[in-house]
């Protein structure tokens, strides 16, 4: 290329050519009889302007503008290095502002923007239903066995698959070793839908997916790697106590929404668990088909299913239409509002950081007015001075971007530590090109936002006055501008603080809910009974009786029991028919929990009426249940339920106090995550094998022990208590009641932690802004204050006078922020429980926190006033 050729010749080469010329000429003149010095001078003379020639060569050889930019950058870097305080504060603010955004955007990117790791992911869908009429809803849906058969056989546009709701904990036995694993159950074409081909072996066949089909299993790569035995295909392993033949191994990094260690065929049918909507559907659009076709076929296929018929019967006037939603949107629907809310908050922090930086740059520029005036007077063009300014800001913005990426990736790592395992539907939050591009964009945006004010402020620089007056003060106009910026920052901070405050109040409300039992001194342990052995009710009863008796025998244990689920957890939902009273025949839904005798005593759930279960409530004894207060209130309407029948011949023998449970099962839509629901307790000894095998494939029962004081090695003794009955039954984990509460409130805790972090960041940045404003006022008015004090003013008066600029700005900001809260906090309504959107204690707390921080930020810099010596300041002038 042309310019390459030009660049080949250096100016040194050019100079040496001229030097050669001069020497030659000198030699020639010497030959003509001139003395050497004279000859050399003549040669120089005849050459003309040496410097001019070299300059012309230089200019012809370069892009001048590049030279100028390089010079501007060098100069800008020097100027930034000269004011290390300003540079450090600016970089810190950008590191926080851009870092927070980088971290949050990585999450947005991973959840909402990145393509899913499946071939043709855009052809993957999940099921939604729109309900219109009395109630309207747009919700993801699961299917029952009948719907699945229709979907599989009568929707030609789709390749459909279903899986169990999640991967459940099971006991896996191989080579005499018991291992606790997460097992998922999937239909025949599940892996085909996600385009996953096994590394070894094959996918499940349709014949294996039929009810009572052969028991086969596909291992995940992680599980197979332990042995990495290529001959594993065809081998048998014990899963849930039953032999399964291994038919395949998934490749490394193969992901499905189920994320299981081992998969077995689902073998769905309209009976058993297929009665309820217990299957998660996924489908792939077949080639040539459209989503509209698929949706139409789906609705037609389900038109006459039992579920739809029932829905029409129970909700006259309502309509329910099914439709497919792209997998990514469907999977992240729950997290989307939270993630976007976070993005909004981090955007606010970015704005605050930029406003601060703009304010600081403004001061910096006004200090350098004389410098700019001098440069203009010496012949620099306005464009050149502006370019200099912008270069400095750009340099700062880019440096901020780099520090932002570093802090952002650190913050992201912290965020991942905060999230519970399997919380996010993606396996990683990578810092990919899109995230880096976003950060670069933020850096440039910073440059524009921070550069534009100082650029305006210096563009109308008056040369004469700037050179004449030595004062480098902030003009009244730019002081007001800075105050306005700070008021804006404070306003945004108030909104974030109030939002965080409301979430904190919500969490406090939920954690302080009267639990309805005594949670302290209880240790619980879970184990998977999803095992063929315990499909036999008699073996199940033996396990319960003996293991609980063993636990009661541990020294220091006051009581022990076992139950399917515990307070703070979600329970099994079942349909119960009301047998007596005016609502006789009505089918209702309630939580159902089987418990051993001693459950209420161990948890110390108060008995309100009747009796608790005893060993006499055995398999051959009359069917009995205990209900909680809410159940009695909802379905017995003030009648004493004791002795009444329900669900046929079952007798209610007791009423107990409500305990808080997780609303995750969704008995009441829009309920708080921890709530009180209608619960029926059944004696564990009266459960039949069919029920046990069904619930144990979803739920892991808990053993509970109460001790007066903490006991060293209690978990090992509990394990021992179970192992003496069944050596192949490992506990999957030990939990205190507060662990259970924490896992139910995980989402709320994360929301609170993140929003508090955001609000704290905003508060910190606003405080820095106010601090900087007041500090610069103090520095600038040192002389004025000196004169005032010489004339009799006190330190306090001077402090008040200077500090009031910061206080006023913050005051305006607070007022504006409260007004802003009126509009924005309503958006949070769905996240709040037990606290209103306009909550006085929260507002008061926000005002108090803000006032304290503002006070510190104003007072600390004004303390310098006390050190001003009037005599010195006056002499300095």
């Amino acid at each position: 290329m042309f310019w390459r050729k030009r660049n080949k010749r250096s100016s040194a080469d050019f100079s040496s050519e001229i030097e050669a010329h001069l020497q030659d000429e000198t030699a020639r003149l010497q030959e003509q009889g001139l003395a050497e010095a004279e000859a050399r001078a003549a040669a120089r003379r005849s050459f003309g302007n040496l410097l001019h020639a070299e300059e012309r060569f230089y200019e012809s050889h370069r892009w001048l503008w590049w030279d100028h930019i390089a010079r501007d950058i060098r100069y800008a870097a020097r100027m930034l290095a000269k004011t290390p305080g300003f540079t450090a504060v600016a970089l810190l603010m950008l590191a926080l502002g851009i870092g927070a955004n980088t971290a949050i955007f990585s999450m947005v990117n991973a959840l909402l923007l990145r393509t899913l790791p499946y071939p043709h992911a855009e052809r993957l869908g999940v099921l939604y239903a729109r309900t219109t009429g009395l109630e309207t809803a747009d919700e993801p849906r699961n299917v029952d066995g009948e719907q699945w058969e229709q979907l599989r056989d009568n929707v030609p546009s789709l390749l459909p698959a279903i899986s169990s709701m999640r991967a459940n904990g099971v006991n896996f036995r191989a080579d005499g070793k018991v291992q606790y694993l997460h097992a998922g159950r999937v239909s025949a074409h599940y892996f085909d839908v996600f385009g996953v081909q096994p590394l070894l072996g094959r996918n499940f066949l349709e014949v294996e997916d039929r009810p009572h089909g052969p028991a086969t299993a596909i291992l995940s790569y992680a599980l197979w790697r332990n042995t990495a035995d290529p001959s594993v295909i065809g081998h048998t392993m014990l899963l849930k106590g039953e032999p399964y033949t291994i038919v395949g191994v998934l490749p490394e990094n193969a992901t499905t929404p189920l994320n299981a260690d081992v998969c077995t065929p689902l073998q769905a049918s309209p009976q058993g668990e297929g009665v309820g909507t217990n299957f998660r559907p996924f489908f792939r659009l077949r080639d040539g088909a459209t989503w509209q076709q698929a949706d139409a076929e789906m609705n037609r296929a389900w038109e006459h299913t039992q579920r739809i018929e029932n829905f029409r019967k129970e909700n006259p006037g309502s309509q329910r239409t099914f439709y497919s939603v792209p997998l990514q949107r469907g999977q992240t629907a729950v997290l989307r509002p939270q993630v976007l809310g976070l993005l909004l908050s981090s955007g606010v922090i970015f704005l605050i950081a930029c406003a601060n930086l703009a304010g600081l740059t403004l001061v910096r520029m006004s200090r350098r007015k004389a410098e700019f005036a001098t440069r203009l007077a010496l012949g620099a063009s306005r464009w050149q001075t502006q370019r200099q300014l912008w270069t400095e800001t750009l340099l700062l913005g880019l440096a901020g971007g780099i520090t932002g990426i570093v802090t952002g990736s650190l913050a992201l790592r912290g965020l991942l530590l905060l999230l519970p395992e399997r919380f996010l539907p993606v396996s990683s939050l990578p810092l990919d090109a899109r995230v880096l591009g976003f950060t670069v964009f933020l850096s440039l945006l910073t440059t524009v936002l921070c550069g534009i004010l100082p650029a305006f402020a210096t563009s109308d620089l008056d040369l004469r006055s700037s050179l004449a007056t030595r004062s480098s003060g902030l003009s009244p106009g730019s002081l007001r501008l800075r105050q306005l910026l700070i008021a804006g920052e404070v306003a945004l901070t108030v909104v974030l603080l109030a939002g965080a405050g409301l979430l904190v109040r919500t969490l406090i409300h939920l954690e302080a809910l009267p639990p309805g039992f005594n949670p302290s001194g209880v240790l619980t342990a879970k184990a998977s009974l999803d095992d063929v052995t315990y499909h036999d009710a008699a073996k199940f009863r033996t396990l319960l009786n003996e293991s609980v008796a063993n636990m009661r025998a541990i020294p220091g244990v006051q009581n022990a029991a076992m139950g399917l689920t515990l307070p703070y957890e979600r329970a099994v939902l079942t349909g119960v028919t009301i047998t007596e009273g005016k609502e006789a025949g009505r089918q209702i839904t309630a939580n159902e929990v089987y418990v051993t005798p001693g459950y209420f005593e161990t948890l110390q759930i108060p008995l309100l009426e009747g009796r608790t279960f005893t060993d006499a409530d055995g398999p051959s004894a009359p069917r009995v249940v205990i209900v909680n207060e809410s159940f009695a209130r909802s379905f017995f309407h003030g009648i004493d339920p004791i002795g009444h029948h329900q669900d046929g011949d079952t007798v209610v023998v007791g009423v107990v106090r409500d305990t808080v449970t997780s609303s995750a099962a969704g008995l009441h839509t829009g309920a708080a995550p921890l709530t009180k629901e209608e619960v029926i307790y059944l004696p564990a000894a009266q459960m039949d094998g069919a029920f046990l095998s069904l619930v144990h494939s979803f739920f892991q029962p808990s053993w509970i022990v109460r001790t007066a004081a903490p006991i060293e090695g209690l978990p090992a003794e509990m394990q021992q208590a179970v192992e003496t009955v069944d050596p192949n039954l490992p506990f999957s984990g030990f939990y205190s009641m507060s662990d259970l509460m924490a896992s139910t409130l995980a989402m709320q805790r994360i929301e609170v932690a993140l929003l508090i972090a955001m609000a704290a960041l905003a508060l910190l940045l606003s405080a820095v802004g106010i601090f900087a404003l007041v500090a610069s006022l103090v520095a600038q008015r040192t002389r004025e204050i000196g004169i005032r004090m010489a004339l009799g003013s006190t330190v306090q008066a001077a402090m008040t006078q200077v500090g009031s600029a910061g206080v006023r700005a913050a005051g305006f900001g607070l007022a504006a922020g409260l007004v802003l809260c009126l509009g924005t906090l309503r958006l949070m309504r769905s996240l709040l429980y037990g606290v209103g959107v306009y909550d006085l204690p929260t507002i008061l707390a926000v005002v108090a926190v803000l006032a304290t921080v503002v006070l510190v930020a104003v007072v600390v810099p004004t303390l310098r006033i006390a050190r001003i010596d009037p005599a010195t300041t006056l002499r300095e002038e």
Partner: protein
Amino acid sequence: MSTQDEKERLELLQGTLDLLILRTLIFGQQHGQGIARAIQDTSGQELLVEHGALYPALQRLEDRGWISAKWGISSNNRKARFYSLTAAGRKQLVRETTKWKRLSAAIARILDPAREG
């Protein structure tokens, strides 16, 4: 070479230096000083080549690809940068020469109409 001589010499017209350099190089490669001397000598000492302008001009011609350069040893055993005409330079010389001849003829006609008749 004295100051007296220089004053009497003609200054080069704008743009003619390039043409003269190309023309000089048609006899073979030459270094900068040689080119300057050749122009002065061939013009019967009438034209003054300001050396300070010569080297940037050489550089310009080299950049355009009309001449090429390499370092060598001059006849009096000194290091010098030798220039030679390229094929493109040869074509350019023909073009420029034709143009210059037409131009000078036209100017001559205006300045001295009688001679043309």
